């Protein structure tokens, strides 16, 4: 018997509306094949099933179990002191809804979070029963991302990791003082402890699986976290340093950056923002990509001298302008990583260049065909041509900066679309 009723509509409206500010859409990173006769699978490429008005990918049903929260975080719409409609799903009701959507190919799976009901442990138990209902009773093999409530016990985190593909504990605010200031009931310890615990469990599980083939996977798609951007005065350097450490030392799969949306204008602890800092968010994602796919270090992008990202240019161009002695790069000779450092050349075009130049000396015509963004790349490369346009060496960085700025005005809107690409496509940045 389905547990869907008229009330489900209101709950869905409230609890989807409350969860929407959470940006991580990725349903990727797992390869879970269907069990025989079961329902669903998860592929390494997360599939988007629809797009919202802002072009965000809708892949998982992102929803809260409850927005009845006992905490009072300054930046959150669901904080206790807000007069805001409240609702709570019954675990079976939410499971039925998920299955109904999944069978119709509306979604890839479930992204479950929740406000803190009673206490962290009780909330985790309720969330786990939704996930267990899906996996055990419905034999559901689709993707499940589950938030870990800060401060919940390690037993419960272990249990959650057995059923979910990915766990995330959101850091939200990157420094301890600012976190305490804005979210008085939370502390660093209650967030970092679960992150460390999950990393350790994943490593341990990997070892176990080498020895015993029958061991079940623990969060096969790993863990992620999220920062709110612009609710506190932390610099991009602070944020990216921490992100870099989480990638390197804790093996996080993704760090998400969510531009702060002013939902509690009355709270004087928060900055006055009329629009969310979308450009900054976008630049942080670009920087994050450089860290993960382009072999850049945090200090290459932000450092003592430049603690914040340049909002008007993408961080790769900025890097090239600050390090003019590395350019121009010879397209027909440079190795893959040097090609990748060129603005306008992404991983895909770098690979195509490396393949194509075996047969032919490449010129600017070939590069255009391959998909290199010549508008930007032209100042940083030389190729098999005489009298080709001038490079950064002749023009000087300041002038190149002006040229690129003038050239990119018209494409800005399109560039902003990068923030939620589901897979690392070849977008040249």
């Amino acid at each position: 018997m389905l547990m869907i009723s008229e009330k489900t509509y209101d709950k869905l409206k409230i609890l989807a509306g409350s969860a929407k500010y959470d940006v991580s859409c990725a349903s990727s990173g797992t390869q879970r094949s269907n069990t025989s006769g079961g329902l669903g699978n998860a592929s390494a490429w997360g599939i988007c099933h629809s797009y919202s008005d802002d072009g965000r990918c809708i892949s998982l049903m992102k929803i809260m179990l409850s927005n009845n929260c006992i905490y009072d975080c300054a930046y959150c719409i669901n904080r206790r002191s807000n007069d805001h409609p409240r609702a709570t799903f019954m675990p079976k009701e939410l499971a039925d809804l998920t299955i109904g959507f999944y069978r119709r190919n509306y979604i890839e799976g479930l992204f479950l979070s929740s406000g803190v009901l009673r206490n962290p442990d009780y909330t985790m138990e309720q969330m786990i029963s939704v996930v267990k209902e899906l996996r055990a009773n419905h034999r559901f093999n689709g993707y499940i991302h589950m938030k870990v409530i800060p401060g919940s016990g390690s037993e419960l985190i272990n249990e959650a990791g057995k059923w979910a593909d990915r766990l995330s504990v959101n850091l939200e605010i990157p420094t301890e003082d600012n976190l305490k200031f804005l979210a008085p009931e939370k502390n660093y310890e209650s967030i970092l402890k679960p992150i460390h615990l999950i990393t350790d469990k994943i490593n341990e599980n990997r070892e176990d699986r080498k020895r015993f083939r029958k061991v079940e996977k623990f969060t096969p798609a790993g863990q992620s976290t999220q920062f709110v951007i612009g609710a506190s005065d932390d610099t991009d350097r602070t944020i990216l340093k921490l992100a870099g450490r989480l990638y390197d030392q804790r093996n996080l799969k993704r760090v998400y950056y969510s531009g702060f949306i002013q939902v509690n204008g009355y709270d004087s602890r928060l900055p006055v923002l009329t629009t969310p800092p979308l450009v900054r968010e976008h630049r942080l994602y670009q920087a994050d990509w450089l860290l993960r796919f382009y072999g850049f270090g945090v200090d290459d992008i932000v450092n003592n001298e430049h603690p914040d990202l340049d909002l008007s240019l993408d961080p790769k161009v900025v890097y090239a302008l600050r390090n003019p002695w590395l350019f121009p790069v010879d397209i027909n000779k440079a190795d893959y990583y040097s090609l990748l450092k060129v603005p306008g050349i992404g991983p895909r075009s770098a690979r195509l260049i490396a393949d194509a130049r075996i047969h032919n000396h490449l010129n600017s015509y070939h590069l255009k065909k391959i998909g290199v963004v010549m508008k930007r790349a032209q100042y940083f490369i030389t190729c098999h041509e005489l009298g080709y346009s001038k490079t950064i060496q002749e023009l000087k960085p300041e002038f190149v900066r002006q040229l690129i700025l003038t050239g990119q005005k018209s494409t800005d809107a399109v560039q902003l679309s990068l923030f939620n690409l589901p897979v690392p496509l070849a977008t040249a940045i």
Partner: protein
Amino acid sequence: MIIFRYENSFEGLLTLVFESYRLNLFPDKIVSDNESQTMIFSDTVSIVADERKAERVWKKIIEKSSKESANMLQIVFLSEHPEASGLIYDFCRLMVEKPYNIETDFSLEPVLKLSRLFNKVAAETARVRMFTRFQETSENTYYASFSPKYNVLPLCIQHFTDRFADQEWIIYDLKRNYGFYYNLIETVRITFEELPANPENGQIPESSKSADEQHFQKLWKKYYDSISIVQRKNYRLHRQRLPKRFWKYLPEKN
């Protein structure tokens, strides 16, 4: 002008490649038999599809370049793009005539164009996986239909068979009037005498829907409407990612 005409199938096209070398005659233009009714000239050569000849060309492609290239050609063929057969033919000729494996030599026009077209077909295949919407019938079969730009349904079927292994389903291409039916054991190709759904929106008649179907469509629309963030609206990006031609089939857009 020499024109070659082939039977409209991938096999037919590969046979054409074979024949062109056998006859030592290289066409200026190739056409398929269902597009060439109005322009049969005296020097049109008609090629009859032959499995063995096609097979030899197929093997040659794999030998001289790779299995991936061979698959790419087959997928590009499904695009039904006006340039597709010409490009495949040119690729095969270059492959035979150049001393090296041309598959990554993007400075050759046909190689680059083929890879572009391949990406387009792959993108449409991905869209079908994304935007397919099943409706539950009163007999608990899940039904979906739409009209993809290219003939990509065959490329999506394995995906749906793997994923929806415990439900019966039908996916139907309304434009090409054929589809696939999964009966819990295997997936078979089917054609209905009459279109099973309204071509305007892909919906089956209300009387054939299960009791819960409208509920779930409405719940999904409710979800979709609830997650929109006013501060972030960006319609241009929205339309770029969710092409308008799919809207009529999506409950959330209606």
